[in-house]
């Protein structure tokens, strides 16, 4: 634990020992990096994911050393509100509290608007936008009661700029920014902060699924001419959920190698 500076706030990040974090989609990619970062600083990490993520979470645990025992898996499809409620209830029953919620789970179903089906539109909005709404709704009473909470929603550079073939994804990621600000306003006096992190193109499976030509275009549109690493996104999330970041709310923190509006 760091000593308090003469200005009354800790100068550096504080330990997360005793804190409980929910990370949706936290078994791999950016979510995996977030889970690792929080567990490394002592938080209990409840990964919320769909059935295939159980195995992935086991793999994540296996890749950690001392902090492996801090990582747990709870199955829930965030597009379904009752499942979100049940997962949060179970986390609180097992670990006594929830301090941190990171809405990271996201999917893509890319097509130009002319080829995109209504189902593809809806599926991406359900997971990427409704999911965060449902999860926030599920944790909020608890956080308000305890007068403490840190919520981070993972948006995307694409939410600022749009992207060819991603009308559903871009709409969800942009929508997440309005959602973030609204919930931040509604919870500002309850000791809760709600912020968004908007990564650029990051070296994860989601991006590697893109056609190589599209990946090359993404890199060439990035002034730093490279993809981001999941850990580079993870550390921004880690910074925002820190106790010392209490004056930051309703913010969107970009991390995109210069690929901005």
């Amino acid at each position, binding site marked *: 634990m760091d000593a308090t500076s003469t200005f009354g*706030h800790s*100068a*550096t990040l504080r330990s997360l020992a005793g804190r409980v974090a929910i990370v949706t989609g936290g078994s791999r990619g950016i979510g995996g990096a977030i889970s690792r970062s929080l567990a490394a600083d002592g938080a209990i990490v409840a990964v919320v994911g769909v059935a295939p993520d159980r195995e992935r979470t086991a793999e994540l645990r296996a890749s950690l050393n001392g902090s492996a025992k801090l990582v747990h898996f709870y199955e829930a499809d965030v597009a379904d509100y009752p499942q979100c409620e049940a997962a949060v209830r179970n986390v609180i029953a097992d670990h006594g509290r929830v301090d941190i919620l990171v809405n990271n789970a996201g999917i893509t179903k890319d097509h130009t608007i002319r080829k995109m089906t209504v189902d593809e539109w809806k599926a991406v909005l359900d997971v990427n936008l409704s999911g965060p709404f449902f999860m926030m709704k599920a944790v909020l009473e608890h956080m308000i009661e305890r007068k403490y909470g840190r919520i981070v929603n993972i948006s995307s550079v694409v939410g600022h700029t749009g992207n060819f073939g991603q009308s559903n994804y871009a709409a969800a990621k942009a929508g997440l920014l309005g959602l973030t600000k609204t919930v931040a306003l509604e919870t500002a006096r309850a000791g809760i902060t709600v912020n968004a992190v908007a990564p650029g193109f990051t070296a994860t499976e989601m991006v590697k699924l893109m056609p190589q030509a599209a990946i090359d275009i993404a890199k060439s549109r990035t*002034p*730093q001419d490279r993809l981001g690493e999941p850990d580079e996104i993870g550390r921004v999330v880690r910074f925002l959920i820190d106790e010392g970041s209490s*004056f930051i709310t309703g913010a969107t923190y970009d*991390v995109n190698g210069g690929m901005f509006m």
Partner: protein
Amino acid sequence: MFEGRVAIVTGGTRGIGAAITEMLAKSGAHVAAGYSKGKEPAEACVARLKAEGASVSCHQGRVDDFNDCQRVVDEVLERFGRVDYLVNNAGITVDKTLRKMSNDDWHNVLNVNLSGAFHMTKAVLEHMIERGSGRIVNISSVIGETGNIGQANYSASKAGLFGFTKSAALELANKGITANVVAPGFIATEMVKAVPEAALAKVIEKIPQRRLGEPSEVARVVKFLLEDGSSYITGAVYTVNGGLDM
């Protein structure tokens, strides 16, 4: 974490600047804190931090004068051998409604708050480019996002930093240098405490978190952006304002 590194913080001996100076120095950097007037308070600030084990120097100069900026940068390079971080924090207010704002009121604020950042960036740039690494953080304000009655000059200068910083970020993206903005809300400093009590109460009422920020809360965002691990963050605007810009 910043051992062996050197930071220049303009306006670094008071308010938010002093908090930035303190945080970076206590993280191991040598901090060259700039000031324009107030030699005694500046030296007192340095003495206090040195007594706490930090490595700090203060340097007199006016950021609205490019020659002063070059002189101070040269001084720092001469004495400390390098500049890793530039924090353009120096800023003034001359608040008037448009109808009462003189040309001088306009230009003075633009010259310090916006041109000052340009002058200082230009003064350190060749060095940073030669070394293939550097971090520039420009201190803007929530007022740059929202505007404010009586602050046409201040808000223009602070908003101007957004465009300036993004351009710098684009130009320097392949040179190992990042440029970002931190935009604080209302922070408990002399500048804000000078506001009459009734007016200040009204200001606080507008802040969703109903409190002013502490200078150290801004300093830690600056520090985060300067860290080695933040190299993918460039051209960004990181706000810290208790919810004020929504």
